[in-house]
């Protein structure tokens, strides 16, 4: 299983960024809507859409997928 994003679907709302427990543990002040602050996290909103930075840190928990309102981030 791999973490994937579909940027065409993405709203850039950043819900996945703040929902991801790994992201939050790396940077508890993650601010999804405001854009990227550190590239240490798994994903961040950049230019209004989600972008993966360190997907190798993903624990495949599926939280992001649960919160994403538009199927823009998922495990496949």
């Amino acid at each position, binding site marked *: 299983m791999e973490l994937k994003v579909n*940027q*065409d*679907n*993405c*709203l*850039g*709302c*950043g*819900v996945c*960024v*703040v*929902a991801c*427990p790994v*992201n*939050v543990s790396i940077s*508890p*002040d*993650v*601010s*999804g*809507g*405001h*854009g990227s602050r550190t590239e240490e996290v798994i994903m961040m*909103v950049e*230019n*209004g*859409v989600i972008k993966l930075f360190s997907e190798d840190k993903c624990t495949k928990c*599926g*939280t992001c997928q*649960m*919160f*994403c*309102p*538009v199927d*823009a981030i998922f495990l496949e």
Partner: protein
Amino acid sequence: MIANTKEVKDEGFDIKRSAEEVRNLSFKDHICIGCGICESTCPVDAINVAEIGPIVREEVDMPKIDIDEDKCVLCGMCSGLCPVDALDFTIDSEPISNIVSYPHYISSAEIDDDTCIYCQRCEIACPRDSITIARSLPERSDLVTGEIEADEETCIHCGICDEMCPTDAIDVDRTPGEESIEIDKDKCVYCLLCKKICPVDAIKAACRICSYGDYDLNPEDAVTTGSSFIDDETCVKCGWCQEICPVDAAKVKKQYEGTLDIDEDKCTVCGTCIDVCPCDVLSFPESPGPATIVDNIHKDEQYCIHCGACERACPVDAIDVKITNVDYTPTKSKSWIDKFEALKN
């Protein structure tokens, strides 16, 4: 109000979001116009907009929209598209309209104080009572000057001048034994009506402006000053102020441009659309006579914001509102662009 930290429960999943970022979605019922755009735009079907007709007619007392906290993921899309900003979405106390990655439709309403003549036509016309025009008029006594005097000896205190005076400047006490006449020079505009009407010629008066042409009139003193204020919270950018302003001081950029059509064959002239319209676009036409049943709804389309509240409320599906143009701040999110474009259908 829905706030972080939230849980989503589904198929055995029990997930808690715990980032320090605080997201807040709050709903302003008094601002909501019940157009239903949020309902159709919510990607997770968390919003349900009530039947707006009975609510605006005060037949029922309930919130106009209901947000399912369990479904809402706090993405902010409803807030971005709401034509009247009834849904406030903030990330760490910052409204998303200030956040670059969130696009927003472009709309505005402004009154240019340099051009405004403070006639207050817009204030009266505004269907949402969003405009306040404060004005201060020049002193009447600075503009009109003259001389006026009542001869107490000649005056018979008949009170005719008191009754005739258009500015209430004359006060005649007719109590027997205490008769008097007083003229308030601050109120007097030297129209000389009292002088003309007095049966005993007791009043001597002259208007300096009439007597000496422009002698005492300083045009600079005749300027009305003031200030204008538009309450951005309640303003729906309908354009009434722009349309009614005699000096083009009011400028409105509507959020959604489009068309409004009423199918007169289907319309039963029930008036529901008139009740729900936030911009006073729709009205019953003037009835030609007593007890005449009007056969159509009159529309002033130039004030329409194409929110679709009437279309949604119409019990017989006679109204068709189409959005043909939305200007929005630049975004690279295809999903947002699709949402804005989808409004046009």
